């Protein structure tokens, strides 16, 4: 792999940038792989990378029906944080956070991980209690977090309306200063390039249409371009996970919903952290290009159309203008939707399945981007060993039978 650096850029500028290497090959699929990953989004590509890098398993294919990073990786609001309430979640997301902190150097691709701080606003006394609970849990789990009062919030976030004139006045906020944003596309491309360099085959424009099984175990995937054999298969297809499970012959405790987001026109930097509010329901950050990146809510119905309903956008902008009245003259440039696979307890499923050697990593709902390296890392370990990584184990499908849910949205008082 050609190493990227400032010097490299200079060198290539002398030859008018005509000699840059391809970031990844377009390989012809082999007959059989040690591991086939279905889904070439951030999580799938990260899984492939860590399989090769950490576990030395390089006979790996990533099969993607469209283009690399073309699903939710390309459509999210890029927030990264690890301040989850429950131990199981906090440990998993903090594992991801630590990987984020060295990711650009590890994969030699600048994913622009920017630790500009993530604030979660509190608008009710119960928000304050829940926030204290979460921050206190974070602290004892080794995850940074602080609870701020209204004056501190006002001092740290200019232009946020911290007065009592709002419908739900701000009573405080939690902040995770190590949280922030990353450049979403770069995460997919960076993992893809690094995985490719280690020998992983990235097979685009190839749709998995079924799973071939023998004696209750998967032995490969059927695709629109033919059969690809595999000793183990990991499915990482986000919103389409329910569909893949159906192809494999079982159901999942998932529903796929539209989740919308929008950006403003680029304006001069005015918001330099990530601000989230659950009670008025909006979250906002500003990209390095100047766009305000705004997360909207989830539509309550199942939808695979990558679009949702207009009232959700309305409510979101009402929330944004309520939080930042100065933004009412700024304009929305573009809105879009992703397909999020949501679990009843707002936590992912990283699990074995009723089919032997077939593993699923899904159910990340509205919060998957932040977990990308951690998710890939623990899923890779699980695929490599055939046994779930300890950080992944609590996220088994079994919890929906025995009741050991990890109910994040019940108690966390945090928008995902």
């Amino acid at each position, binding site marked *: 792999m050609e190493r*990227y*650096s*400032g010097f490299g*850029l*200079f060198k290539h*500028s002398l030859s*008018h940038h005509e000699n*840059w290497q*391809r*970031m990844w090959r*377009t390989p012809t699929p082999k007959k059989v792989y040690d591991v086939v990953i279905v889904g070439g989004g951030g999580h799938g590509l990260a899984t492939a990378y860590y399989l090769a890098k950490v576990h030395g398993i390089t006979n790996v294919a990533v099969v993607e029906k469209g283009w690399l990073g073309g699903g939710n990786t*390309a459509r999210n609001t890029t927030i990264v944080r690890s301040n989850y309430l429950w*131990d199981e979640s906090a440990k998993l997301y903090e594992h991801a956070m630590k990987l984020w902190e060295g990711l*650009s150097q590890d994969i030699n691709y600048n994913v622009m991980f*920017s630790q500009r701080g993530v604030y979660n606003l509190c608008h009710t*006394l119960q928000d304050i*209690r829940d*926030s*204290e*609970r979460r921050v*206190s*849990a974070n602290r*004892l*789990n*080794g995850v940074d977090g602080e609870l701020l009062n209204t004056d501190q919030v006002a001092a740290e976030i200019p232009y946020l309306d911290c007065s009592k004139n709002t*419908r739900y006045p701000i009573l405080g906020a939690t902040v995770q200063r190590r949280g922030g944003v990353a450049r979403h*596309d770069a995460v997919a*491309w960076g993992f893809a390039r690094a995985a490719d360099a280690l020998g992983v085959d990235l097979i685009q424009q190839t749709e998995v249409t079924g799973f071939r099984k023998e004696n209750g175990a998967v032995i490969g995937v059927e695709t629109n371009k033919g059969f690809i054999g595999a000793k183990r298969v990991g499915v990482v297809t986000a919103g389409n996970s329910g569909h893949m499970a159906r192809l494999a012959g079982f159901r999942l405790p998932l529903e796929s919903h539209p989740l919308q987001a929008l950006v*403003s026109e*680029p*304006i*001069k*930097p005015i918001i330099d952290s990530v601000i989230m509010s659950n009670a*008025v329901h909006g979250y906002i950050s*500003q990209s*390095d290009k*100047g766009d305000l990146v705004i997360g909207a809510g989830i539509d309550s119905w199942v939808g695979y*159309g*990558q*679009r949702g*309903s207009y009232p959700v*956008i*309305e409510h979101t902008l*009402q929330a*944004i203008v309520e939080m930042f009245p100065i*933004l*009412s*003259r700024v*304009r*929305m*440039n*573009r*809105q879009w939707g992703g397909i999020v696979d949501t679990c009843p307890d707002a936590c992912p499923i990283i699990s074995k399945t009723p089919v032997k050697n077939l593993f699923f990593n899904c159910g990340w709902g509205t919060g998957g981007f932040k977990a990308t390296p951690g998710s890939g890392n623990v899923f890779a370990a699980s695929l490599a060993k055939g046994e779930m990584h300890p950080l992944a184990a609590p996220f088994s499908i079994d919890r929906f*039978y*025995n*009741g*050991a*849910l990890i*109910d994040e949205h*019940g108690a966390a008082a945090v928008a995902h």
Partner: protein
Amino acid sequence: MSQSYRLASGGRVNRGKVLNFSFNGKTYQGYEGDSLAAALLANGVDVVGRSFKYSRPRGIIAAGTEEPNAILQIGSSEATQIPNVRATQQPLYAGLVATSTNGWPNVNNDVMGILGKVGGSMMPPGFYYKTFMYPKSFWMTYEKYIRKAAGLGRAPLQNDPDSYDYMNHHCDVLIVGAGPAGLAAALAAGRSGARVIIADEQEEFGGSLLDSRETLDGKPATDWVAATVAELQGMAEVLVLPRATVNGYHDHNFLTIHERLTDHLGDRAPIGQVRHRVHRVRAKQVVLAAGAHERPLVYGNNDVPGNMLAGAVSTYVRRYGVAPGRKLVLSTNNDHAYRVALDWHDAGLQVVAIADARHNPRGSLVEEARAKGIRILTSSAVVEAAGSKHVTGARVAAIDAQAFTVTSPGETLACDLIATSGGYSPIVHLASHLGGRPVWREDILGFVPGDAPQKRVCVGGMNGVYPLGDVLADGFEGGVRAATEAGFKAVVGTLPKAVQRTEEPTLALFQVPHDKGTRGPKQFVDQQNDVTAAGIELATREGFESVEHVKRYTALGFGTDQGKLGNINGLAIAARSLGISIAQMGTTMFRPNYTPVTFGAVAGRHCGHLFEPVRFTALHSWHVKNGAEFEDVGQWKRPWYFPKPGEDIHAAVERECKAVRDSVGLLDASTLGKIDIQGPDAREFLNRIYTNAWTKLDVGKARYGLMCKEDGMVFDDGVTACVGDNHFIMTTTTGGAARVLGWMELYLQTEWPELKVYFTSVTDHWATMTLSGPNSRKLLAEISDIDLDKDAFPFMTWKEGTVGGVPARVFRISFTGELSYEVNVQANYAMGVLEKIVAAGKQYNLTPYGTETMHVLRAEKGFIIVGQDTDGSMNADDLNMSWCVGRNKPYSWIGLRGMNREDCLREDRKQLVGLKPINPKQWLPEGAQLVFDPKQPIPMDMVGHVTSSYASNSLGYSFAMGVVKGGLKRMGERVYSPQADGSVIEAEIVSSVFFDPKGERQNV
């Protein structure tokens, strides 16, 4: 030098009305009817901005929505700043203040431009992914500088003084665009009697006809426009909306229109007027008549000011009477652009030459130009513009479009304006918002709307129909079709006659070849994002082969123009570079909005106190008068505490608590949800949804119940009273009322439709005043005819009678542990009753108390608050409320099976207990986590957390409730709460009932 580029005559401007405006601090003049762009061009202003990445000087290139460069800041005061206004779409008004959005010290001399020239070669697409990585800790520093270059305009720093709203419509036919096709469609639909809305983004209707050379029935086309608009305005069922852009086509024919009501008057709306309005339209049928955008050709230095779209040149000349130069060179691959040369020539200006990429063009317009003696160079194109801050010449060379080569060195023609036309791209945005993929048509070299299930018709230019006569016919037919589909009778009508011409096909040329290839001067594709043809080629070389990848890697089409000008060229270049066809390449997804929409307009009135409805109880004004501080609970404003002058919350709550324990207090409990339940199966229904049994509850009695979801976790609670054998009144938590009612309806309607029972929300119909404390009986007796004797009216019963002279239901239930009466009266009597209670209460020191005191008092008794002491993961056993669980009820009530799942039967589940700090002065923060071993290293093994915590005057020490793993079997053991400051609070696990454990005080 005022308006030195204004033509002596012509244009639709009012030369009698001169308007002063300022740009970058300098004052200029224009006319009423000008766009800001027209007025700037009239004054010879060429550099309006600097480019994003390379800081290259940029000028006005277009005349409409596709403008990528003239993105200006407008605003004469801080609060009325408007970022990113397209000068081409901003009408001029007196006193307009505009500035460029970048360039230092100014746009004409920008120091960053030097950096752009020197460093530009280091900034190919995606360069930032390849650098700024080392040393690891430096990214935040790099980013700080990168962000300095971010953004175009700026947000105001003061709150917006204007208001916005939205409006709902239902119509038979919505027509998008009021050019020739849309107007013809509106005539057809309007005459049929259909309810029609016709909206157009421009200041006036007419679209392309406003600057057209075309005649209709031998008269100027604008005559027909005027007559048509007049006819439409005369139709009662037709709503005519200029300055209104249809921005989003949403599911089931729901479309949004962004109307700018006052932007042509000033940067602040006149008093009493709304600045912008969003029309939310549900249309039976939609006619899309959005037209087409001209594409520029991509050639070297095509971004230097003085390079313009051909059609834009005609618009400035004919509509505004402005010539954006003196000497014109036109570079084209199609017939239609020749009109520009003819317009220029007719205005008495010099056409230096027309470079036509085609071999032997012979169309009518071409011949017309030839006849006027205009020089036409065939098989040629402008390959490179000369000049740095303004065009000084155009190098025209012979090219082979097929082979993509330059076949002669060509000649440089002196000129100050290069007009360019690469053909037309139908405006398929709205037709594609719902996912319908546009289809490439090689015959017109453009994408047209693909099939879609929506009830819509596409007409005119956006359908690839260009000759005026055909456009009118297509539009009219589309209008007829839409109206008949919507149930109206078709009308016949005659349309004016347009001049017939022979027109020859456009040549497929997007990027003009250059002798030096990608090493030549920069050929810009997306000017706003500084995306060049070489950059797109580099992206494809590096493996970005899908159109979405190319877009994302190069930022092509990410700007405020959403790629209107450059996207088709960009994907044509990518396709060529990859050796595939444009059809194979396809387009990126089109998403709302067609053009940017003001946040405030989308939000409408729903901000500040109208952000969400506020619910007040019938006694609210009394609370305000008595100095209450309020707490938001759901949408309700509840009194939190009633401070006396000089009191803080602690002093007030201490006083209120003492009053209740010693004498009597008054709580407004009206916000609790109240559901009236009636029917012969009411009792059975309660048995199925509550954890406990209701079979034996007699008329006149009340009982507390818990509700669970199917998973066995508690989600609401409250007291339900038996009013009659078939009649109950249920109370729920304040926040849970609507949720509980919907949930009950769900089970009734979908699972148990055989049960005869009916639910009515009566929360707002009753006001509830709780009198609590040892003197409550005496007080109530003074104003009520109810027999309050303790045997006649025992605990957990209710009675009907009068209180304060009005009918009342009085419930003897208690959430404080004291003797309590909940007085319910019809809400509209409540204030009168309250006054009588207060008057009678004087002698008992009747003290109003709020939610905070209520919380303290109930916690002393160990009563839970659902949502505070529970979190959706607690079942009745966890709450130590097994006494409230009827495990042997005949029907398997909701929650029973869930409670018996493996994980719910664990002995070491977190259980609700009392917590008593060892140091009685220490207070456990609510939410604080608990551990058994405070000395263990991080990550610690957390065993629970504090759910409620108070300082208690009655107890003389602070106390808390919390959940602890296996806590019910750990009475007397210690837990520890490590705090942020490093201190540790030690507490003993105790019973959660701290006060009057035998319940003697409430049973008197």
